[in-house]
């Protein structure tokens, strides 16, 4: 790249551009890029084949089970995993916005509540939060079915972490935006809802994407409260047909593919937002 522009500048300083040189350099760069990509794909395939051969040699992978139970794990389990993650990221986002508003509030009560929430949730393990909501709340006569309980736990947990993300996002909106809105006679709530939050959401969208991908994997913890998601189904089917390893491997592959798919999706979204650049 630098070589190409250097060559161009040199040619220009002599009052002409040697187009054939520029073309050759571009072609060479394209070839180098293609070689890089092909090598990348080859290495991945080699590693995957290597692992496959090792598993086959160890008799760890059972094709019969994989073909019979695999589709159930993929279709049903992955469906529930995605459904729970989507519902939870929505819940977490709402909680995070409320939390962030509390954390920047000058009202001491709101600030205290939001701070307590963030501190408590970030200071305790997610698995403990899941157990408390599913197993301990019924002691207080609050019974929540497994899936809503799981969504609630994930929402609460991620909402606390995302509170800080949103707080930073809100504070990243330039002060002049609030001042201009205020100077137009808008009230505080209006300024927050129509001017600051929409810009803050754009700022934190990439971070929300990361949280969502992390959540896809953390949702596996809900297998411990019998939510029929990917890992739970894999464990149950694996146990009943004495193929636990194959089942776990299928589950792992499902999570892996889901994260790859959503990473690509996120990358696209970010690029599109960067392009529209509002």
């Amino acid at each position: 790249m630098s070589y190409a522009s250097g060559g161009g500048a040199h040619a220009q300083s002599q009052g002409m551009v040697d187009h054939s040189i520029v073309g050759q350099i571009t072609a060479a760069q394209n070839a180098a890029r293609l070689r890089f990509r092909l090598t990348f794909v080859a290495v991945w395939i080699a590693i995957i084949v290597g692992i496959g051969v090792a598993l086959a040699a160890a008799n760890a992978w059972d094709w019969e089970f994989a073909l019979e139970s695999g589709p159930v794990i993929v279709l049903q389990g992955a469906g529930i995993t995605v459904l729970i993650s989507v519902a939870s990221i929505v819940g977490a986002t709402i909680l995070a916005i409320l939390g962030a508003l509390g954390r920047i509030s000058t009202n001491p009560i709101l600030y205290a509540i939001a701070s307590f929430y963030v501190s408590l949730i970030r200071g305790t393990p997610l698995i403990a939060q899941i157990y408390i909501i599913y197993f301990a709340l019924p002691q207080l006569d609050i019974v929540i079915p497994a899936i809503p309980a799981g969504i609630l736990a994930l929402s609460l947990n991620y909402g606390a972490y995302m509170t800080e993300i949103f707080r930073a996002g809100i504070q990243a909106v330039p002060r002049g935006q609030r001042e201009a809105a205020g100077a137009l006679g808008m009230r505080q709530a209006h300024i927050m809802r129509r001017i600051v939050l929409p810009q803050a959401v754009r700022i934190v969208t990439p971070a929300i994407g990361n949280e969502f991908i992390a959540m896809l994997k953390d949702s596996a913890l809900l297998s411990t409260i019998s939510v029929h998601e990917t890992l739970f189904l894999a464990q149950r089917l694996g146990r009943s047909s004495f193929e636990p390893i194959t089942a776990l491997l299928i589950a792992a592959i499902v999570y892996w593919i889901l994260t790859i798919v959503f990473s690509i999706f996120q990358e696209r979204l970010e690029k599109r937002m960067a392009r529209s650049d509002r």
Partner: protein
Amino acid sequence: MTDEPLPDLGVRPATSTSGYARGSSLPSHIGDPIVKIEGLHKYFGSNHVLRGLDLEVRQREAVMIIGRSGSGKTTLLRCINFLEEPSAGTIEVDGVRLEADPLHSRSRAFQERVRQIRLRAGMLFQEFNLFPHMSVLGNCIEAPTRVLGLPQDKAVERAEYYLEVVGLGEKRDEYPSRLSGGQKQRVAIARALCMEPKVLLFDEPTSALDPELIGEVLRVMEDLAHAGTTMIVVTHEMHFAREAADRVVFMESGVVIEQGPPEQVLDNPKHAETTHFLRRFLDQ
């Protein structure tokens, strides 16, 4: 084009001739006082920036404020609509009078009066501060619809009218990121005009602009001034002040040192500080 009465941008005869700056004769288009600033003080910590400043601005008057960096020009403008909280003094805009009360300014009643002042005093910033997530039209109708309660179609008509006034009618559906600095500032002016304020406050509206874009903004402002828009402008553009100002105000260390018609203040200043400032300014 619209049945809303649009503000009179044309020159109207004066309704009063009393008490114009230091008894000099009042230009015929100038009306009654509409902005009154009395005994304005502002401290930033122990930094006493505004020191008992008095200023009156009349209807259809274009007042240009000049003064060296740090003399408190921006602070004065921001105190008028309470973007900066005055430490003491009284602000009155179009009959809405508010005495500084830093200890109780968080109260709902106080904030509501601040809002009443802001509805009457439109503000233009150095950095434009357009809302980047809204189109030009969106910027212009947000406050009219949601603050003034104007119906959507009326607000759009009004926005189109003022975008035409600033020469950007064809940009209504663009987003701010696709506009030049000069266009952004003109949209900001249209956005402020859409609220039909009684006075426009400009804080160095061209100082963030590339030199070749300054002219288009100053031209719009000059048109507004000549059409009788009341405005208070902090500026370093002396040529513009000379052309468009009814009155030039020279500030120093948080007080008004000298004021009067541009030819008087700029060409025959009475005070040594003014002379000194103008000489240093012209040397640059």
